[in-house]
């Protein structure tokens, strides 16, 4: 269990994390989603005591991180896989961590096997590792103490598709055994396939949070027609919020209502269904549009989802 309560971090006049409150529960994978620079990493660094908070508190397993007697056995942390001494071998990095936690040496071999690093790879210096290998090593370090909580910052970065699949299964299994997993990403698809709960952050503020199912449901209805302008007019008349997807409209209303509006306007539909995944992606872009560096121009009308 991870609890973040009214967390704020400001640097001079800039507020990197702005009154963030959420809980990552045991048995679930919580996805921490936001564009680059949204405050994900800062929040995670505050959780593990590397950055002091301006105000607010964080708790892991019911305690402040600094009060954990042997944090490695309770919380697995991976903040930046590249933050390792380039001159150490992968095995040595794990050995040092295992020694700090007071674990037996064989745990290192078990972990190397678990993250599929071969003995020859483990004997190489980290300088010669690919980003994917560093991520595997970082995950091995996080899992070393068999912790109940995992805090992972962009763990899928640099992994190939098979690696991402492997990590997904690993984290799923971890949560299914009752572990708490918090992982951040700026890639929606990555999070969407694995997370049970979502916390979406933009410019330091939480813009949406809830279970994935809730957020998907609130993403409305996807509707297709050959007469887009006609349907758009009808929707405006019916006072419904909607937005343009590439080849369809997404409406903030359920399918039945949208169907009725189309019917009374005499517009033939080619497709009408809950927006599902497409909606979540659009929601992400929408929620973070103001905070995004590149202005997206994909939505015709504003729609306050979530």
């Amino acid at each position, binding site marked *: 269990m991870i609890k973040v309560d009214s967390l704020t971090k400001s640097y001079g006049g800039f507020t990197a994390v702005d009154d963030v409150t959420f809980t990552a529960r045991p048995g679930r994978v919580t996805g921490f989603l936001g564009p680059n620079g949204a405050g994900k990493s800062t929040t995670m660094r505050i959780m593990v005591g590397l950055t002091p908070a301006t105000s607010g508190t964080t708790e892991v397993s019911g305690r402040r*991180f600094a009060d954990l007697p042997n944090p490695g056995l309770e919380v697995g942390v991976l903040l930046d896989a590249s933050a390792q001494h380039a001159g150490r071998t992968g095995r040595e990095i794990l050995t040092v961590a295992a020694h700090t936690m007071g674990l037996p040496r064989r745990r290192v071999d078990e972990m190397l096997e678990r993250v599929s690093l071969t003995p020859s790879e483990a004997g190489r210096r980290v300088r010669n590792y690919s980003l994917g290998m560093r991520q595997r090593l970082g995950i091995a370090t996080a899992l070393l103490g068999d912790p109940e909580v995992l805090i992972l910052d962009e763990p899928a970065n640099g992994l190939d598709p098979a690696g991402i699949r492997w990590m997904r299964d690993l984290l799923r299994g971890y949560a299914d055994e009752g572990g708490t997993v918090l992982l951040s990403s700026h890639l929606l698809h990555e999070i969407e396939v694995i997370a049970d709960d979502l916390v979406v952050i933009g410019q330091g503020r939480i813009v949406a949070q809830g279970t994935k199912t809730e957020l998907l*449901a609130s993403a409305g209805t996807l509707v297709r027609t050959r007469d887009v302008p006609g349907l758009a007019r009808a929707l405006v008349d019916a006072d419904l919020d909607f937005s343009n997807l590439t080849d369809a409209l997404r409406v903030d209303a359920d399918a039945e209502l949208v169907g009725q509006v189309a019917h009374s306007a005499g517009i033939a539909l080619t497709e009408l269904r809950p927006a599902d995944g497409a909606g979540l992606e659009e929601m992400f872009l929408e929620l973070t549009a103001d905070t995004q560096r590149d202005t997206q121009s994909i939505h015709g009308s504003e729609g306050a989802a979530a």
Partner: protein
Amino acid sequence: MSTTTVETDLVTAVARPARPTPAPIPMSRIVSVELRKSFDTRSGFWLLASVGILAVLTTAAVILFAPDDQITYDTFGAAIGIPMAVILPVIAILSITSEWSQRTGLTSFTLVPHRGRIIRAKLAVALGVGVASMLLAFGIGALGNLLGAAIVGVDPVWDITGGDFAGLILFQILNMLIGFMLGVLFRNSAGAIVGYFVYGFVLGTITQVLASTQDWFERAQPWVDFNYTQGALTDATSMTGENWLQLAVTGFFWLALPLAIGLVAVFRSEVK
């Protein structure tokens, strides 16, 4: 609004069995981890190995080049002291700064979320390594003295007293502490190493010149110049009570105070 039934997620009630609270990490373990970390990289290993290598090279140079009547233990001790004054502080500097420069602090300070404990462990390791290095270097010097005397064909001269010996070790330990202080203050390998050379060599030269040209500075020097007061340790047995007091006063301003400032910064800073 949506009338679709929001599928209420079943909160998976797979609570893990409650675990016993782990025992806290003992200080001795942190010290041994830090000791290991100072050996386990190629650069760290060679830095430590260079203590022995440089002691051997310096000893050989003394045997080769020193005039016959200078083949005494004091000559060996003085010669060995020069490379030690460079290498030992660098060891101390890197033990601190690599956590920031190599960014290993992200892991170190997360596994032990009390920076003070890690810094104390590093200090213990640095002091241990310093004393051990000096004993090793003096041992190599002693062998050199025996060998040199045999080559020249005289009886070996053992002209370092116990007090001098302790003074020389203290001299090097202070150098290490200066390195440690600069590491804590700068938290950057290159900056701290350059800082050490400025502090020890550039500043030392400037104060020497100043003292030889300005009367007022020459009078003030024993109370303001740490390099000067520290230098007295190379002849520790002839130090007066006033000399020790001067060492303490200058050490406070040049070592303890900046170390305290650096430590406050280390405890407050962000580790990225």
